[in-house]
């Protein structure tokens, strides 16, 4: 199979180029895109990418696979490429490229940091632990599973335009994860940090984030909840 990879090394290249490489795939097996990349690396060790868990848990191998953001390790080749077609791999769009498929995620993490992604509670801690009812715990389902792979935010046009001001779907999903937590007491401060015209309100409901999340999460819905909470607090 032909694999076309985005190559860029800032030390030696003026411009990024797409370079093709032919890979023999073992017959009768549907490899994951990451497996193909490992085969590529055996042939050409200069290709670089991030990976770690190879099972969709660490979130490090987010990349653009035949035009769609996803995790290479859990995307089967058969799903990404039409029979006889070629596999096209690019870095996640919208953030600076460090080299080949590796992007600089600082802006993404900065937005994540802004939402204070940790529990804030101003009451005295109980002796053992803060309890939560099963119902309240359930409210965090679909929020806590995010692995910060950045597939969603780098697929969001609003994030491409204002990566320094719009928090983006990943950060907002986590913002809501703590707003929804019954053990968190900082709702008011959290919300007042979000009511400006950029942080939340740049979301246009395009739902590109939902379309690509490899964990099947729904940032758009969480953003809707934040907007409702802002409305309740502001009116």
């Amino acid at each position, binding site marked *: 199979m032909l694999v076309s990879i985005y190559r860029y090394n800032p030390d030696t290249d003026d411009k990024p180029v797409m370079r093709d490489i032919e890979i023999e795939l073992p017959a009768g097996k549907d490899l994951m895109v990451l497996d193909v990349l490992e085969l590529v690396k055996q042939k050409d060790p200069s290709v670089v990418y991030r990976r770690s868990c190879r099972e969709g848990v660490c979130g490090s191998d987010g990349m653009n696979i035949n035009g769609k953001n996803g995790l290479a390790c859990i995307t089967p080749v058969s799903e990404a490429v039409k029979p006889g077609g070629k596999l096209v791999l690019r870095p996640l769009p919208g953030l600076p490229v460090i080299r080949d498929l590796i992007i600089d995620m600082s802006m993404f993490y900065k937005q994540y940091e802004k939402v204070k992604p940790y529990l804030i509670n101003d009451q005295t801690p109980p002796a053992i632990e803060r309890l939560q009812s099963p119902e309240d715990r359930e409210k965090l389902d679909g929020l806590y599973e995010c692995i910060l792979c950045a597939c969603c935010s780098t697929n969001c046009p609003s994030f491409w335009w*204002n990566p320094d001001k719009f928090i983006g779907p990943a950060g907002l999903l986590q913002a809501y994860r703590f707003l929804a937590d019954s053990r968190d007491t900082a709702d008011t401060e959290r919300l007042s940090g979000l009511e*400006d*015209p*950029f942080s*939340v309100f740049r979301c246009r409901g395009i739902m590109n984030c939902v379309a690509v999340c490899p964990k099947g999460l729904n940032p758009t819905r969480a953003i809707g909840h934040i*907007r409702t909470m802002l409305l309740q607090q*502001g009116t």
Partner: protein
Amino acid sequence: MVTNVTNLGRSGLYDWLVQRFSAVILATYSFYILGSFVVNPDMNYEQWSALFASNVMRMFSLITLFALCAHAWIGMWTISTDYMTSLQLGKRATFFRLLFQAGCALLICVYLLWGIQIFWGN
């Protein structure tokens, strides 16, 4: 919190609400005008100007005019802050954005004053 000086209500929530309320007003007004054409397909000038003569209609028109201006400003401001940023235009972005926003503001003011004159002048 991202702060800036040129948006209408200083808060995204307020802008968002204004944008939605004004959209409803604009839609209602448009349907009303369109409806009066449907009801009376061969409207002449006298009937057309009589339609706008009552005080209720003048108020409705004025409110719609304000809604239109607010809607246009929020919309144009948003577009300018999406597309005219330093990512797209480099160092001169602020200059061009302000120029564009000033142009929009001027045009909106002219339309507002002109509209008031049309609806409320003699």
